[in-house]
């Protein structure tokens, strides 16, 4: 199914859906759809919007990945690396108050210099990490 259209076109379609979802959440719920922020909200005991939004995301996105070939067919990383990665992502997004969605989509759409700085920073350190893992360190991870 994912082969029907070019991946770039699927990217633009998926991006438009993400932008629309952020828009609906803002206009009709008055909420900013930063995923890390919503997760932190649920952990603080917030119910209603964060909980129901994330439930919809997990179920609809997860089922679609199961039923189609949009997801990865190859495993990505071994579990110790996934744990280290998850810890850093959880810690960093909480300290920075946002992730790819909160800063990268919502903040940048508002023209926030703070969010633009965050986005440039995390893309830069992520690219540097991939460069080291793939091209410098021995082992040649995929």
């Amino acid at each position, binding site marked *: 199914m*994912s082969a029907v259209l070019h991946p*770039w076109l*699927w*990217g633009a*379609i*998926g*991006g438009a*859906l*993400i932008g*629309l*979802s*952020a828009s609906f*959440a*803002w206009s*009709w*719920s008055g909420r*900013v*759809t930063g*995923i890390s922020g919503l*997760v*932190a909200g649920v952990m603080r005991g917030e119910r209603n*919007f964060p*909980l*129901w*939004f994330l439930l919809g*995301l*997990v179920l609809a*996105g997860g089922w*679609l*990945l*199961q039923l189609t070939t*949009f*997801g*990865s067919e190859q*495993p990505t990383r071994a579990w110790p*690396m996934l*744990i280290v*990665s*998850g810890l850093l*992502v*959880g*810690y*960093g*997004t*909480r*300290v*920075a108050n946002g992730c790819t969605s909160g800063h*990268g989509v*919502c903040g*940048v*759409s*508002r023209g926030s210099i*703070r969010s633009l*700085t*965050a986005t440039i*920073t995390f893309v830069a350190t992520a*690219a540097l*990490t*991939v*460069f080291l893992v793939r091209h410098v360190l021995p082992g040649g991870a995929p």
Partner: protein
Amino acid sequence: MSESIATQSSSSAARANLIALLTGAIFGIGLAVSGLSDPHRVLGFLDFAGAWDPTLLFVMGSAVGVHALWLRFGPKPEGAKPPRADRVDNRILLGSAVFGVGWGLSGYCPGPSLVALLGIPAEGLVFVPALLVGSLIAGWLNTRAARTV
């Protein structure tokens, strides 16, 4: 008109939760079809020295384009104020730098990792608990720092 106030408020709460569920579902579908939920594609975008995959530029460009236009011309929420913080401080630089290192190690950021709970459970069920622990540690350190100041 004969509805009691209690029934009205509980049905409007149910309606708000249904809107939240559907809005979240649209976000999840977007994450799935965009390719952002395929960590290999994400790592391909971050690998500027390898066979670079520009798909994520289309995802982000499209999402920001749609949302920026909507913020300008779409309906405004009642009573809600947009986030006002616009100061670049050490927290945003340090936090984003750490987040980027984690993102580059696996290709998972928070949204796609939640989609992976059902979509790629072998990875999502390992990554997401670690993400929650990392977030809890940051929240705990922050509370402690606030107390000692």
